[in-house]
Every structure is written in C-alpha cells, then in structure tokens.
C-alpha cells in the first residue's frame, strides 16, 4: 500500500547545466519518460518529460534553413529553460491512494519521490500505480477468477459467511471486498483460485446471494 514498494529507486537524475540534447539522449537510452532535475545536493528543482523535449525541437514542417537555425539553438539550451519548476512530487511515506489523488489533481505521468528535505530518492509513475493496484486486486493472476454478488441483506454477517463458506469447501480465496453502492444493494467481490468456478456460484446462490453476471 506504500509507494516505496512499487517505485523505481535510484532514478537517473540530471543537473541544471545539462543541455536538451543530452537530456534527450538519456531518455532514449533508458526508455523512460521523466527526468528529475536536481541541484548539487540531489534536491529536486524541477522535472523534464519526453513531451517537453519533443515540443522544444523544431517542427518538421519548418523550412530547412530555419529549422537548422532553431536546432542549433536548442542544442545549446539547458534543460532549466523548459523544465517544469515547482513540479509535483510525493513523499517517501506516501500511500498508493495519496499518489492516485496527486495524479488525478496534477495530471502528470510520474512523480519524483523525495525525502523530507527534498532529496530525490525515487520516481513513481502512473504505470507503477496501475501495476500496484493490479497486484493488490489480483487482476490477471494466474489461476484466479472474479465473482461478484449482491448482498441483499438476506443473511447477517455476509462477509464472514462467505469467507467460511469458501474455507469449508476448500476453495482458495485471495480477495474479498465489500463495496457499498450509492443506491441499491451492497456488492461483494471475491477472487477465487479454483477450476470449479460454477461450484462456487452454486454455493453462493444456495446461501442466498444473487450472482452479478455480465
């Protein structure tokens, strides 16, 4: 649940004097999309993305001569000219939920991860977030499938009832989540690890739960 478990540690960082050409080369070589810009003490001063870099280069529709001229200027430009200063970042003790909210608020693709005194120690991307949630909820986990039921209140203690139903019948369950709906009955989702999914359907129906089917 902490981003520290899913972030890239020791990310490649650059200093303010790096030129756009050098920055672009780094991104190409390592196939990533964001470079934190740091000072001599490794403290965060900005971030530059592959998109920022692409936009800085002259468009291919410009006349050759003009293009060449802009190209030469760009070559000598330091990243500080195009980086996002005061960029979004996130603390090392942040949770996945914290990160989700920052991504939603700031519409960025990656967040430098910093210590209390702003030293960059990691980078956490949107892809890391989806990978983390995928693991948390077990999506595409080999051997598993998802079952959803409505909790119509026919039975009390519905979660413990389902848990023991599965345990009593030797069905491995790896996730059990109950989610309240704004209207209608609560929903209970479970990820089970069994070949005999229909058996589980039957057990649940016999216990008074209504299956949610597509």
């Amino acid at each position: 649940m902490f981003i520290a478990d899913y972030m890239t540690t020791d990310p490649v960082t650059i200093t303010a004097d790096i030129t756009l050409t050098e920055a672009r080369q780094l991104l190409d070589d390592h196939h990533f999309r964001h470079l934190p810009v740091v000072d001599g003490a490794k403290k965060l001063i900005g971030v530059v993305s592959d998109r920022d870099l692409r936009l800085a280069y002259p468009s291919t529709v410009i006349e050759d001569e003009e293009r060449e001229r802009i190209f030469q200027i760009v070559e000598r430009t330091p990243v500080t000219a195009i980086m996002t200063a005061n960029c979004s970042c996130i603390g090392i003790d942040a949770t996945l939920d914290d990160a989700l909210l920052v991504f939603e608020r700031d519409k960025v693709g990656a967040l430098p991860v910093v210590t209390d005194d702003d030293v960059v120690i990691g980078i956490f991307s949107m892809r890391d977030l989806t990978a983390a949630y995928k693991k948390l909820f077990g999506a595409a986990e080999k051997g598993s499938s998802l079952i959803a039921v409505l909790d119509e209140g026919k039975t009390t203690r519905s979660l413990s009832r389902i848990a023991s139903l599965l345990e009593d019948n030797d069905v491995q369950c790896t996730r059990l989540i109950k989610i309240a709906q704004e209207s209608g009955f609560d929903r209970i989702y479970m990820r089970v690890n069994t070949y005999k999914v229909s058996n589980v359907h039957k057990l649940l129906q016999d216990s008074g739960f209504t299956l949610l089917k597509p």
Partner: protein
Amino acid sequence: MAVHRGVTIITDSAYFDHDTGGFGHPENPVRLEVIMDALVASPILPRLDFIAPVPATREQLLSAHREEWLFRLEEVVLSGRSHVDHSDNQVCYESYRVACHAAGAGIAGVDLLEGGGAGQVFCMVRPPGHHAEATRPFGFCFLNNCVIAARHWQLTYGRQRILILDFDAHHGNGIQSAFEREAGSYYISVHEHPSFSYPGTGYSDEVGFDEGRGTIVNLPLKPGAGDAALLDLFVRKIEPRIVAWKPDAIIVAAGFDGHRLDDMSGLQFSTEVYGTLGGIIHRWGELYTGGRVLSVLEGGYELSVLGHSVEAYLRGLLDGADTCKATTKRRC
C-alpha cells in the same frame, strides 16, 4: 502418399490409471469411457482406427518442461501425496507414468501424419495438458501435450511454423507461455472471458512479447456466448490469421467444456457446433497446411454430452473430408 479417409484415434488403457481421488473430481477416467461408448455406437466407427502410443521420452518432455518440474512431479506422485500445488491437481502413484503416456500420443500422431500412416488424428488422452507450464501444473494439467507435440514437429520434421488452435472453454496459459516469446509459432485461443473464468489469463491484449509479439491471439467470449459467437470468431478472426501466418501444421487443443450443459464454464455451445468446428478445421488443414492437423483432447467434463461432442467433432473431420472429395474429386 496413401489417401486415408478415416480418423486415427490414439489412445491407451493406461489413461484410466490416473486416479484423481474418486469420481467427485471432474477430470476422471469415466470421461474416456463415455467418449468410447459414443464412438462405438456411432455410424463412423468403421472409419476409425485405434492405435496405442509409446510414452514420451525424457528428452521429448524436456522440449517443453524444465527438469526440476519433472523431478518434482515424479517425486510427489511416488511419495504418495494426493495433489500437486493446488487441490485441483489430484494425482496418484501412477500419474507421472500416465502423463508421459498422454504426452506420447501427440508425438505418435505427428509421426503418423508425417509418415503417411494417417490422414487425420485425434489423441484421446488424459490428463489434459494446456494449462501446464514449464515448471508447474495448473487446472488438472501436468505435462503440456500440445506443446510437446509441437516441439516434436519442429525438431524432428523441421516444420517450424506451428499453430496451436485452442477451443477449450478455458485459456491455455501453458501453451501461451511456451510460445509467447518466439517468432514462428502461434497460439490462438477462444475461451470464456478471464475475469469470470479459470485460469484468469487470456485477455485480448495478451499478444506476446519481444520476438513473439503478435503471435498470440486471445479471443475471449462473454459468459453465455453460444454457437453463433464462436463460429463468428472462427470465420472473421481466426481464418484470416491462418491465411496470413501460413503455418506448416495445426495442432488443435480440443476441449469440450464450452458445452451448454458443462458447468465448468458459462459458455453455451451445442453438441452440433463441435461437428461444424471439425468440418472447418479439416478444410483449413487441406487448404493451408497440406493436411497436417493433429487434434488433442483437453477438457470436457459433463459426462452426458462429452462423448457426443467428441463424436460430432470427429464426424465433422470426416464429413469435411467427404465434402472436399466430392467437390474436387481429389484431395483438395
């Protein structure tokens, strides 16, 4: 090459010796009994030959599995334990030997097809194989019969471009993981959508990696999908891939658990649709792979319909052959 108008069934009494802990387990020996009963009662019986295979050699098993897994499987069964890794994967003392026999069927089938000893081959085996991975079992499968046959075709006969076509109701994760990083071997699977079904893999965006990118095609069907949806995929999605890839041979992972009465999946196929699939697959073999098609039994657990479904599939293979002969007066 001799013209064969029948189907050679490769099977062995050894397959009854894999005891999955009584008949409460869906993958039990009665599956083969009901298939045999349906074939014996069928008008196609005179056109079926029955042949027993020899077990796959260790070297052949190693073309698809890692040695550590072979040792572990053998050790588990000989030590008398009841299952491997998950209680679904029930075993008995004989299971390793039987699984080697099942893997041998595909190899024998390839040899027959290549040597001119058979026109069409159906391997009537258990335990099934398509979930088995290089180092671990899944879903009643221990050794991947289809992948072992594919490797034999590639290594012994130089038929590099092998397509495995899987119409079992479940995704064949073991076949996919064997093929997903290499160019020139292909896997197409039609199965119930992985969010609702075992083994939870086979999403349409799983297409292979690196060299193998684009060699894997997953075609999930929603629970409740029936014959029309299945046949639509065969015509619109699968045949164009075969035309484009030009495989040297097709191995069919033939599972019959998508039947509407088989509660191992929510799919709603009829018995007859398996006949239609047989006809289509025969035709593809003739049109695209020089007749090189090998079918291997995977799942199918509802005993009241499994035999008829397999019989319908074999009838489809035979009718396909008759139709081809009638329309062109030669092997089409």
